[in-house]
């Protein structure tokens, strides 16, 4: 049975190394500040005992005043999982660091988020639209798309 890691315990471990990077932590997920995202992600992937080397998915949700990008991480060895979120408050040009260097599976998924939501990922080698054609105006999955 895959155990969901407790958000609070993992937050305690992260706060030791990167103080003041976790915004809030709940039962099975934690919210990270967007500029600390890459460091925390690397920490989660490389630490013994956590070893979260499998990225289940990356997606984004449009709450009307902010975007929330959700990462679901698992470990195949220890069979546990954790959900990490990062918020993006800018509506005109939202941007977040890309985790492609850690998990290559995020490649097409981050392009999809850029295509459908408009969130750019800095550090991604090929940031362009994937499903819709170049020249399409707008980002369909936003709540204010006509």
């Amino acid at each position, binding site marked *: 049975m895959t155990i969901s890691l407790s958000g609070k315990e993992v937050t305690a471990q992260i706060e030791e190394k990167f103080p003041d990077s976790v915004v809030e932590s709940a039962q099975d997920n934690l919210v990270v500040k967007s500029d600390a995202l890459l460091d925390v992600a690397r920490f989660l992937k490389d630490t013994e005992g956590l070893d979260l*080397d499998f990225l*289940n998915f990356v997606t984004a949700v449009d709450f009307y005043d902010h975007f929330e990008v959700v990462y679901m991480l698992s470990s195949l060895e220890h069979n546990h999982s954790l959900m990490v979120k990062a918020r993006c408050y800018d509506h005109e040009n939202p941007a977040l660091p890309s985790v492609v260097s850690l998990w290559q599976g995020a490649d*097409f998924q981050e392009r999809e988020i850029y295509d459908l939501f408009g969130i750019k990922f800095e550090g991604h080698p090929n940031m362009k639209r994937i499903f819709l054609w170049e020249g399409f105006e707008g980002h369909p999955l936003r709540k204010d798309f006509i």
Partner: protein
Amino acid sequence: MAVRTEPFVLNIGPVHPSTHGVFRMRATLDGEVVVDIEPVFGYLHRGIEKLAEERTYTGVIPLTDRLDYLSSMANNLAYCLAVEKLAGIPVPERAEYLRVIMAELQRIASHLIAIGAFLNDCGAFMTPIVYMIREREKILDLFDMVCGQRLTYNYMRPGGVSQDIPDEFLPALELFLKQMPGWIDEYDQLLKENEILLARSKGVGILSRELAINISASGPVLRGSGVKWDIRKADPYSIYDRFEFDIPTGTAGDCYDRYRVKVEEMWQSLRIIEQAKKQIPTGEVRSKVLHLIHPPVGEAYAHIEAPKGELGFYLVSDNSIAPYRCHIRAPSLLNVTAIRDLMIGWKVADLILIFGSMDICMGEIDR
């Protein structure tokens, strides 16, 4: 005398007999050898995630059918598990057993087409796929008996299944289980040690174990590379922890191993169906659920082992009758991420073969 050469860009276009749907690759070739490749998606982007936001929770089920249209039962199951996790809906025993039987039959049907299409790409032009279609028709007859449809079933509901099986289903299933092993043996006899298949697919398109985990591959692609990870064993959903079955894995991670993993999985599915058929209880098939489901505010992620890999649904709800956000974690999109690393250095003919062994479905990638 030195001849000046330069790379040439070949467009393996969206309409091509062996791209398994509308998938486009811009391949840069040096002679016959692939130097670089750029995949282009989006020719079947129908906006399913956006459409799901304007339909009720039960009304999204026909949309999920059309994601991976070769394994509709699995898509339905994953979505219903996510809604049940979100809203806390229990499922009766008989419905659980019916779900397992349908999901495993669907796995066999999907693998038949996957193997048939792979062999089609290998060069055996129509013969294996016509044999596989003959078997698949028998499975589709069983599904037709249950829900009236051959391809997009719309059978599962949050809280169970939509209707009970008719009386003639279980005897027909018994007959199918008796005959299917003979047919799989027939394929093995023709194909397992076939010289042409071995020469074309052994050692071709090797996906290493580390790369497979890094790209979040799942399903036969991951297991063909030697990683023993199957969600039915690692994170059992529904009642899979009551059945005994093995997880076949490959060793080398090449096209031949992925093909063997699929054939062995068909054997394991037959085992599961036999055990389920013996244990199926009587009872109702759907728990009492409101027609308009109002889950509490929150989110849920449920994943299953679909025939192509890990299929998951991430639902966010805001206590209204429609999902606020429905994200579909499609296995084919992630399995295809490493396509550049796999194909560079091989010839054009191998490119088609490697792509066929990945077994993707464009309805899922483009959503």
